[in-house]
């Protein structure tokens, strides 16, 4: 059975159709890449899965249960963590406090929340920076903090929204390693990414959105050869 199933999801904002009848599913333990040109509806889809927007039509199922129309905090509790495209650290809190705040979700007291938080910080390599105010972190570490915070909620599935944007190549490689280790723990990952190198290296499967519609789905190799995808990214062949 698939872990997450997106069934005929449409999302309209007034006259603008951000998502049109998108369907696909994620299997447990896989990394699925979600790509598409700017404005294709990738983040909107995350916001629907995460519960910020109810879908206009269709539904999202997590472990066979309908989660669309639940609130984000309820969906998080069920086991879906997420990061934001524009990083949103709790600025006037230390790195450790940021992670403790999210670790409380699964902890019965502060001591346990602290343990979960420290474990997550060691995992992503932010342990040394734990006492820094998060507004003072460089971008690379802020992106890591987002992931750490999501991990501290002990998710079964993680939604990563452009965690690689703005990172230098060595930071990118480090993050690829971290994401692979997250998957090794059995956490399913859906990742939005613009860096083709990263998405091709990470994903087991890729879904391509364009103007809110799913135009392709397949392994990285298949997607790289798909004429529709090439057209969406490079323009029509006639006009090129």
């Amino acid at each position, binding site marked *: 059975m698939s872990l997450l199933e997106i069934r005929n999801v449409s999302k309209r904002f007034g006259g603008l159709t951000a998502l049109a009848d998108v369907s696909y599913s994620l299997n447990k333990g896989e990394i699925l890449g979600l790509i598409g040109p700017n404005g294709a509806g990738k983040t909107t889809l995350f916001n629907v899965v995460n519960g910020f927007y109810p879908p206009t039509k269709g539904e999202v199922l997590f472990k066979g249960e309908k989660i669309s129309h639940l609130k984000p905090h309820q969906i*998080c509790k069920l086991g879906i963590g997420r990061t934001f495209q524009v990083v949103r650290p709790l*600025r006037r809190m230390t790195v450790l406090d940021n992670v403790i*705040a999210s670790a409380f*979700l699964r902890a019965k007291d*502060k001591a346990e929340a602290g343990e979960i938080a420290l474990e997550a910080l060691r995992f992503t390599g932010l342990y040394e920076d734990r006492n820094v105010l998060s507004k003072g972190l460089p971008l690379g570490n802020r992106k890591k903090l987002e992931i750490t915070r999501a991990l501290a909620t002990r998710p079964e599935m993680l939604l990563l929204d452009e965690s690689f944007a703005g990172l230098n190549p060595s930071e990118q490689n480090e993050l690829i390693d971290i994401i692979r280790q997250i998957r090794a723990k059995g956490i399913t990952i859906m990742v939005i990414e613009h860096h083709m190198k990263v998405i091709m290296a990470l994903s087991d499967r890729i879904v391509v959105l364009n103007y809110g519609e799913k135009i392709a789905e397949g392994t990285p190799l298949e997607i790289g050869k798909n004429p529709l995808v090439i057209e969406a990214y490079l323009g029509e062949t006639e006009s090129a």
Partner: protein
Amino acid sequence: MKKNLPIIIILILLAVLPLVGLSSYIMHILVLVIIYSIIGMAWNLLGGYCGQVSFGHAAYFGVGAYTAGIIYSKLGVSAWWGLPLSIFVVTALSLIIGFICLRLRGPYFALGTLAMGEVLRVTAENLVKFTGGDVGILIRERTWVGKIWYYYIILLLAIGTYLLVKIVIESKLGYYFVSIREDQDAAESMGIDTTTYKTIALCLSGAITGIAGAFYMNYMGYIDPKVVFNLHDISIVTIMVVMVGGVATYWGPTIGAIIMVFLAELIRSNPSLGAAHQTLFGILLIFIIIFLPNGIVGDFPKLRKLFRLGGTPT
């Protein structure tokens, strides 16, 4: 133990202070300082830590005061019962105000609470049968003539409030409040039920303010809607107390209350300045926001540096 030593010394000083034979006027000022520091601490819980800036804390103060006043005037019960009773009444009120206002964010929440405070003032003015309207409520037989016992009671309430705030802020609730302040959407996707926790912050903040209001009824022996639902003297001065002292700090509201109450008395007692006291408060607030955005307690390291530079170098 060593860390708590200054606090213990301050507590002992506060406990013996009334025994040195201060004038009734000074005692009154001290009681006012403590009342404002309690409301400030309560406001800080909601506005400072949870980030929901309320411009309507007079609503809770006033309803607390009227709870005590009405059980006295209508039921003939001692107004002191208003202190415990106001917890329930004001918590119920907080739930209603929260239901209406907490769906608003940022400045809209501030406007919503401001409106609620004013709505309650007008209600109290017009519900003559119940509240006595503009005539107010007078307690004819005061419990004590002197001010010493009132001082000790409000001091105990302040200590209780301080401890409660400290316990709450250092617990899960505190982490959740600050997370909501820093980024509500991020908090929500970390699994925090922001609506529930904002409501908890509001209820705690409201209930504490309500007790202070109930005490005020007992202490002053007279209330009317224009006093206890006052937009400037309660709602806005409370915000100033916290801003001046230090937002989201434990001692900020107390330091702020000392400064604001003494400053207000100083300005009012000077006939040539008296009429301009709101203007002067406004100027003070502008200075604080520009130069000490974290308040006196929050920017204490900055202040110390400033004085060291200006004073004798060590």
